[in-house]
């Protein structure tokens, strides 16, 4: 099964992963990654909040295409991709990718593949608030390098 969601409210991974796992009887393994808002600090101060902006006509359709690509590339029984938008606090889940497969390596690699593409390719714009001031976050060269792992 393919389950792709944009979430506007805080979410708990468990209630998403449980039913997803149960929907695939006979699976050999489920691999789940949950990304959370990092509570890091630099000389501008600690991250107080993170806001993710999206564009409705592109963002969900793009995530759905990524789910299809992931299903086509790996031997999976199903994939679940859920992503938060809106304002979040450090420690809140921001992204969840779960892959169910007959064998573990496909599940693990599928999650790695989907995460690399979500981090660099998906239609999200991110800004963070430190010391009461919002700043937009630019793409990092590392994101591009992560993506190239899958084209070589």
């Amino acid at each position, binding site marked *: 099964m393919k389950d792709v969601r944009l979430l506007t409210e805080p979410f708990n991974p468990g209630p998403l992963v449980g039913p997803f796992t149960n929907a695939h009887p006979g699976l050999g393994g489920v691999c789940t990654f949950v990304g959370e808002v990092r509570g890091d600090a630099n000389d501008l101060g600690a991250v107080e909040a993170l806001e993710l902006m999206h564009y409705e*006509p*592109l963002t969900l359709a793009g995530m759905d295409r990524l789910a299809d690509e992931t299903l086509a590339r790996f031997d999976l029984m199903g994939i679940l991709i859920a*992503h938060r938008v809106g304002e979040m606090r450090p420690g809140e889940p921001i992204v969840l990718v779960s892959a169910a497969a007959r064998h573990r390596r496909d599940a693990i690699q599928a999650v790695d593949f989907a995460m690399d593409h979500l981090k660099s390719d998906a*239609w999200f714009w991110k800004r963070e608030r430190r010391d009461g001031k919002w700043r*937009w976050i*630019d793409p990092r060269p590392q994101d591009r390098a992560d993506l190239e792992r899958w084209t070589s």
Partner: protein
Amino acid sequence: MAVKLVFLGRLADLAGAPESELPAPLNWPALVEALSGDLGEWIAGDKVKLAVNGTVLADKSTLRAGDGDEVALLPPVSGG
């Protein structure tokens, strides 16, 4: 008779609002001319992409938008 503009990411800050309107029909030279200052520089640069009604244009200069169309101005994504 208007084209709706949607500004994403930092472009919304530069525009002062997430949305605005320009008269239809709208093509690339008219869009660049209508947006001044930092916003205009961003739009003209090669990092900003355009989407018309949810389809990203491979080449911004081919922009042709009519009444009721929605043109999104997309700066580089910062990742999920």
